[in-house]
């Protein structure tokens, strides 16, 4: 297991565990990793709008240059814009300095492979190994890397989205969209993209500001009261809110109702499956059954993966999937790239509304409804493996269980729903997910299985 890289790159509190010395060292290790296969690796680097971005970008840049990698600084960019640039440009790797939806004291470093996808675990493990062993291959003085700037990334990206969307159809609709960029980097591209799609735009919290003055950057219901209010007042097509680095989008329907990510995921999946007349869609085991149900109904198949967007993206590429994503608002449209992408999601949802000629609330009401309950139980990292073993033993002869799936943790399929129990990869906790058609049943199951996990943890410790 990696010590520094978590589910979404390296994260930490600025000038504490996320500091310049770490960034310089990671730049050296990362550069050394790519240098083994390429004579002069070319790295694209971009950042979100956090206060410490300049500092950390300078630090990691100097690490790369010292190994002999050339660095192209693309400035302030949404994460998907950097990913698209790396894929389309002649880059061996990309770096994005962001802590996504984390509070402002955090920052992070996320890696991108030459195809634009987020680093997979094997790359991160090797970079960490080089970092801790300090087996850097330093360039001698004539071969130290070059540094340059390029300000074309966001235009390249927006044009990429426009090339994959029926924008002429959207233009005819006179849509009005309220967008809440939450002072993240989405403000640099998304409002102008929606204008290019011919929509009227009301944007709030548009200017990138690393202190996130008006709302926390995670687009959860309690942070979105302002956009919900505006949607209700303005009589618009929809509202949409981004996270700090604009890879995830959460939608508000025309009535001001907050839509959970799995509903939007299902709507987009349904539409893509129908228009492609079948195909595979990919999602982690934590996603609501509504997704599988609607995809099957539309003539497609669902493949499940472990939790983590890099895993979903990799699996999609391998399976030549037509669609994928997570229940947190991270939707992946492979015709553009294998990346979670809030701007592409917005364009696609607008295209769906234009084609189906129905308001968003109606389209969402066609998605089957399930009641999900998520909880976390404290569990020391060192006993997680034992807990899993014990759990497997206990459930194996349970006659309530129709099927057991061990893709990530233990998922039990029951007559009226499912239960998933999995240890977190980053925190000392066990996560329990329960879903059924009825809220009462979900609550019952939650009581039963939470207790089961708690008892096992208590017995072992």
């Amino acid at each position: 297991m990696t010590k520094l890289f978590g589910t979404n790159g390296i994260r930490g509190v600025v000038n504490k565990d996320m500091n310049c010395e770490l960034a310089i060292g990671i730049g050296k290790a990362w550069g050394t990793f790519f240098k083994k296969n390429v004579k002069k690796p070319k790295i694209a680097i971009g950042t979100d709008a956090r206060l410490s971005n300049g500092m950390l970008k300078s630090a990691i840049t100097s690490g790369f240059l010292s190994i002999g990698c050339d660095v192209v600084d693309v400035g302030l960019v949404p994460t998907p814009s950097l990913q698209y640039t790396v894929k389309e440009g002649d880059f061996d790797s990309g770096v994005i300095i962001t802590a996504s939806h984390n509070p402002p004291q955090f920052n992070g470093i996320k890696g991108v492979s030459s195809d634009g996808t987020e680093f997979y675990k094997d790359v991160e493990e090797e970079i960490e190994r080089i970092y801790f062993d300090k087996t850097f291959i330093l360039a001698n003085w004539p071969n130290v890397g070059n540094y340059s700037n390029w300000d074309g990334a966001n235009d390249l990206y927006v044009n990429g989205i426009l090339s994959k969307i029926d924008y002429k159809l959207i233009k005819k609709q006179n849509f009005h969209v309220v967008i809440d960029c939450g002072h993240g980097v989405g403000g640099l591209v998304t409002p102008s993209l929606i204008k290019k799609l011919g929509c009227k735009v009301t944007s709030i919290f548009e200017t990138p500001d690393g202190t996130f003055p008006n709302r926390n950057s995670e687009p959860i219901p309690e942070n979105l009261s302002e956009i919900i209010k505006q949607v209700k007042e303005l009589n618009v097509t929809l509202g949409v809110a981004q996270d700090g680095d604009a890879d995830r989008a959460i939608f508000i329907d025309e009535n001001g109702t907050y839509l959970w990510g799995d509903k939007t995921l299902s709507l987009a999946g349904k539409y893509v499956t129908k228009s492609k007349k079948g195909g595979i869609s990919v999602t982690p085991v934590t996603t609501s059954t509504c997704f599988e149900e609607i995809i099957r109904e539309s003539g497609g198949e669902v493949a499940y993966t472990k939790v983590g967007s890099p895993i979903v993206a990799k699996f999609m590429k391998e399976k030549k999937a037509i669609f994928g994503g997570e229940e947190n608002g991270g939707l992946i449209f492979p015709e553009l790239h294998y990346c979670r992408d809030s701007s592409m999601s917005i364009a696609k949802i607008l295209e769906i509304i234009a084609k189906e000629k129905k308001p968003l609330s109606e389209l969402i009401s066609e998605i089957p409804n399930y009641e999900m309950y998520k909880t976390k139980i404290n569990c020391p990292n060192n006993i997680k493996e034992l807990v899993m073993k014990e759990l497997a033993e206990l459930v194996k002869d349970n006659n309530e269980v129709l099927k057991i799936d061990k893709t990530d943790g233990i998922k039990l399929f029951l007559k009226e729903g499912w239960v998933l129990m999995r240890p977190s990869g980053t925190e000392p906790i066990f996560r329990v997910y329960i879903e059924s058609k009825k809220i009462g049943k979900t609550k019952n199951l939650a009581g039963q299985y939470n207790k089961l996990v708690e008892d096992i943890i208590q017995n072992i410790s």
Partner: protein
Amino acid sequence: MNNTISKHIFRAYDIRGIYNKDISPDLFYKIGLAAGSYVKNIIGGTNLAAGNDIRPSSPCLVHSFISGVCAVGVDVAYTGTTSFGQTLFKGSELKQNLIAFVTASHLPADWNGIKFYYGDGVGLPEEELMKIRDLTMSNDIKVTDWREVGEVKSVDPKESYSDFFKSKFQFKNKIRVALDCGGASMTLSAPDIFKSLGLNVQEVFCEPDPLFSKRPSDPKPKNLSVLVNNIKENNCDFGVAFDGDGDRAVIVDNKGKVLSADQTGIIIGKHGFSEKKGTIIVNVECSKSVKEQLEPLGFQIKQIKVGHTFLTLEAKREKSPLGIESSGHLILPEYFLFDDAIVVPLKIAEILDKNKVTLDEIISKIPTYPTNKEEIECSDHIKFDVVNKLKKELSIEFDKVNTMDGIRVDFDKGWILIRPSNTSPIIRLTVEANDQNTLKEMTYKFKERTNNTIEEITKKNV
């Protein structure tokens, strides 16, 4: 590279060392912490401008330096890869508290380093630079809370820098200049600026060549043969060669004769100012002809210690029109206090434009005296004692003695200067005289005197 910091890289006027041997990005991060905390805690400022020359290792070093500055809570305006003058200009235009330029000036391409100036263009004196050294060596600088981390802003100096010269120089005649940038940092500014002012430019090594593969970055006469030939072939009015970062310019006349900094300074003093008044700053190594030529015109001459940081400081204090360092730094405070060498050829062009005389005619009217520079070997631990003993003795023996920097003795027919080298186990003897015979005599006499003193002190120490 090991983790110990070698103290010797911190020199009197700047920091210098060989890349991956004495200096590294990790060290420049620490220097960044030190410079940032110098700005914040010692001069009570909030910001710093940083730029770098064209050397291959410069972008790497400047970036780790910048990250260190930010980590202590000081904002950075990054000017990019530029000539020395562009970064200094932008830093003072933006009224930054400190300006840092990553360069090893005229040293070979495997060297690098950093120079510091205040926002007004005055170089950091040695004692201030040593505060940055001590902070770097202390290894216990605290980084700031996440809220206070410094921000980095990219700023492009090109436009306002170029506009500045357009506002200062207009030429009526088509002046033909051979421009030798040596493939170094001046390739980034001088060719464009010269052309934008209407000069007819003959380019010599004006394409960027960060390895300095075509011409060493030190514009010594022996490195300037291509420039000299170009001047002759193209009938240029004059030529100019810059060093690696652009803080020194060497002027070559229309016949291909390489001028000393003293000669260039005299020409500018005689012909470059409408009013001949104010105090011209020269260092103790400058030729006596500077005083002989310029004092009668109405200027006063003030002698100072060697070092371009003192030059900028004194020029500011005295509101001088001109400062001359015999090593090649010339300052013209009507433009800048800092030693951006681009003003030197532009001033020469202005003089030729206004006076309608050729440069060799101007020079023919300025007498030159034979000079001699000797390096006398002397171990580091006694070289200062030797010079101190000589100071005491010579001050008693002779009338005109100046001990502000080493010891200078003036005679009717010339002068001598004895100084310990700051960096090598050497004592330098500089002699200038009215004629070759006197030069030989004086050189012999004071070389012997120095060697005898070395012997005495060595014996005493045994």
